[in-house]
C-alpha cells in the first residue's frame, strides 16, 4: 500500500517538475517564467517529499523531510519576491 502511494506521488511530483521546466523554456517573458517556477517546482517538490516519506524508516526522517520542504517553500517565496522586484526595477529605471 505504502509503495503504491510512493509510486503515485513521486510520479505526480515529477510531472510538476517537468511542467515547470517546459514553462521556463517556453514562456515568453521573465514574469511568466517566474510564475511557472514558483508554482510548479514547489508543488513538485511537495509531492515528491510526500511520496518519499512513505518509504521512511523512522519518524526522524519524516521530520527532516518536512523541514526540507519548509525551507524550500521559504526560499521560494523570498526568491520570487526578490527576482521579480529586480526585474521590475531593471525594466523601468
Amino acid at each position, binding site marked *: 500500500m505504502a509503495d503504491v502511494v510512493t509510486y503515485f506521488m513521486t510520479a505526480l511530483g515529477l510531472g510538476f517538475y517537468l511542467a515547470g521546466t517546459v514553462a521556463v523554456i517556453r514562456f515568453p517573458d521573465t514574469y511568466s517564467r517566474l510564475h511557472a517556477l514558483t508554482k510548479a517546482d514547489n508543488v513538485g517538490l511537495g509531492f515528491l517529499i510526500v511520496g518519499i516519506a512513505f518509504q521512511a524508516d523512522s519518524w526522524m526522517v519524516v521530520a527532516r523531510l518536512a523541514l526540507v520542504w519548509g*525551507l524550500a517553500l*521559504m526560499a521560494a517565496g*523570498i526568491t520570487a*519576491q*526578490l527576482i521579480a*522586484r529586480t526585474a521590475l526595477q531593471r525594466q523601468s529605471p
Partner: protein
Amino acid sequence: MMALAETGFDLVLCAMIATTALLAIGVRDQFGAVVLFVVYSVFLGLGWLRLGALDIALAEVALGAGLTGLLLFGAHARLPASVPVPSGRAVWPAACAAGGSGLALGWAFLTLPEPVGLQEAVAANLGTSGVENPVTAVLLNFRSWDTLIESIVLLAALIGVWSVARDDAWGGQPGLRQHARHGGVLANFGRLLPPIGFMIGVYLFWAGSSKPGGAFQAGTVLAAVALVVFMGGAMRPPLVTARWLRLVCVAGPAVFLAVGLTGAASGVFLGLRPDLAKPLILAIEAVLTFSIAASLALSVIGPPEDPEDHV
C-alpha cells in the same frame, strides 16, 4: 534493471557536469558565467553523493552554491562591464592546451595502478580516534597537521583581503554600507534566517563526530547566515579593529595549537590520547567552527571601503 538505472544516472550526471563547466567557460555574458558556475556546484554536489563522499557533498553545496555565489555576484557588480571574449584564431592555442592536458589526464586516470586505498588503515584505527566518522577522524586526528595549517591559511587570506583596504577606509566596517527597505523582504529574511540557520549549523557540527558534517560545513553555513544578516541591514558588521572579532578569528587555530603542544609535552605533537580524544576533538571543532565562520564571512565581505564608517 537497478544497475542500468544507476549507470544511466552517472552517465547523465557526468555529461551535465562537463556541459555546465563548458558553458560557464564559453558563455559570452559575464553574469551568465557566474550563475553557471554556481549551478555547476549543485551538479558537482550530486556527483560527490554518487561517489559516496557525503562530507564533500555537504562542503561543496554549502561553499559552492552558497558562499561562492555571494562572493562572485558581489565582485561582478563592482567590476567594469564585460570585455569581449576572444574568438577566431585566438581560440586555437587555448583549445590545443586544453585538449592535450585533458587527454593526458584521462589517460593517466585510466592507467592508474591498482589502488591500495587507506580505507582499511583508517577503519582499523578508528577506535582510538575518539569519533565514529572516518573523515572527521582524518581531519582532526590522523592528519590534523593539514587541518591546523588550513585554519591558519584562512587567517592569512583574511589578512591579505584586509591589506587591500585604502588607508582612509581602514578601521571602519568591512565592505560597503548595506541598506534595505525597512520591513521589506530582504530585511525580514535577515531576521528569519538566523534562528533556523544557526540550528542547522550547530546540528552539522554536532553530527560531524558520527555522521557526515563537521567544523567546515557548519562554519560555512554560519558564515552564510551572518552575511545574510548583514545584507538585510538588520545588523552592521563589526569594526575590523574590534578586539573580540580578532579573538574569534584566532581562537580556532590557537586552541588547536595549544592542544597540539600539550600532545608534544607527552610525546607527539598533535597526538591525542585515545581516552581524551573525543572531548578534545569536540572542543577544537567547537572553537574552530566559529573561527572558520568568522574568517570566511569577513573574507567574502571584503576590506573596509567606506571612509565615513569610522566611529
